[in-house]
């Protein structure tokens, strides 16, 4: 069996090579943290969950099946961890469907808002603005946008992780884009 880069690192980790697991973490830490923080919207919680995720991966690494892609297996663990956390803390966590905090408000706190809307935003600011908006869309859409664009997964891989049919995933991603496009239009973001 030909092993990919991740699987070689896993083999080394299982043989007790510490550096191999560190390399694996370094490879995934940004993507995992970006996904988690956008789902829970709290830095401290995101840090805790990211730590829990890597420790969980390490403790169950010997159960990993080399026939599957490591990233899909790992993202499924991460996804379940985040969803469990959100379910457990639904009362405490900011309601994820809460629309009261608009992207504009968030940008305002970041000091990038312009009083004349978003017409004069630079390309980089527009990018930041759109990604801030992603954090405010309902979680059932947000999680799929994050899996698709942050984790760069295919629809089939997302289906494997979320246990949703591919059709539903495509439809929800379309809805998410529709919401984002409407927000762009509302705020006058140039196309």
């Amino acid at each position, binding site marked *: 069996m030909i092993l990919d880069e991740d699987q070689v690192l896993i083999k080394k980790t299982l043989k007790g090579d*510490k550096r191999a697991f560190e390399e694996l973490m370094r490879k995934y830490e940004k993507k995992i943290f970006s996904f988690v923080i956008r789902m829970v919207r709290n830095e401290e919680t995101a840090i805790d969950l990211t730590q829990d995720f890597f420790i969980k991966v390490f403790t169950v690494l010997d159960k990993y099946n080399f026939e599957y892609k490591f990233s899909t297996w790992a993202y499924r663990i991460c996804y379940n961890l985040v969803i469990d956390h959100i379910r457990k803390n639904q009362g405490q966590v900011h309601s994820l469907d809460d629309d009261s905090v608009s992207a504009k408000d968030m940008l305002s706190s970041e000091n990038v808002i312009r009083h004349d809307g978003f017409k004069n935003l630079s390309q980089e600011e527009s990018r930041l603005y759109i990604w801030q908006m992603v954090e405010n869309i309902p979680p059932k859409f947000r999680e799929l946008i994050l899996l698709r664009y942050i984790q760069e997964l295919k629809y089939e891989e997302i289906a494997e992780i979320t246990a949703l049919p591919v059709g539903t995933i495509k439809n929800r991603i379309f809805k998410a*884009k529709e919401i984002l496009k409407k927000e762009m239009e509302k705020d006058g973001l140039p196309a």
Partner: protein
Amino acid sequence: MACLPDQKILDYLDGEIKSIEHSLVRDHLLVCSRCRQTADRYTELQKILAQPVHAEPPAWLVPQIMKRIYADTPRYTSIAALIAASFIFFVTWIYIYFDFSRSSLVQALRLTANSTSGWLVNIIKAISAIYTSVQATFKACRAFLEMLLHVRLGFPLVIAFVLAFSALLLFVTTRLLLKKTGDVKK
């Protein structure tokens, strides 16, 4: 011709519609400015989404996880060393008790060691010296205890003591090594 639904425009941009329908959408976009504007917006949106803004995790995150994982992991080499040490401990006591230093095999080894040279011989000599001194200490302690307690420390009692001590040593140290692993797996 009526404007196209957004879903159709997105499918066109994603290359998810084929041949004839694809041409129809392309032709429509050429003549309908409203749909073209929608397509432009989605193109821009997709371009931005394809360049995600990653959140930066704190620099200490990975080192901290490494510390949590590896400081608390049972060191299998340590456990193996512990088992080996317990075994040596047990064998030493048996050796001392039965005074194997007088056996023909040990005598032969000692004679070989005396007549030749090299690092292996030196190791044999060192082990032999250690065993002899431990044996002497043991004999002295045993004589002292027998004198003090006015009892004879027979074979079963000594073996039971050695076994119990070896088991206790193994148990306590393994517990200490494995204790923190529970924190990791919780």
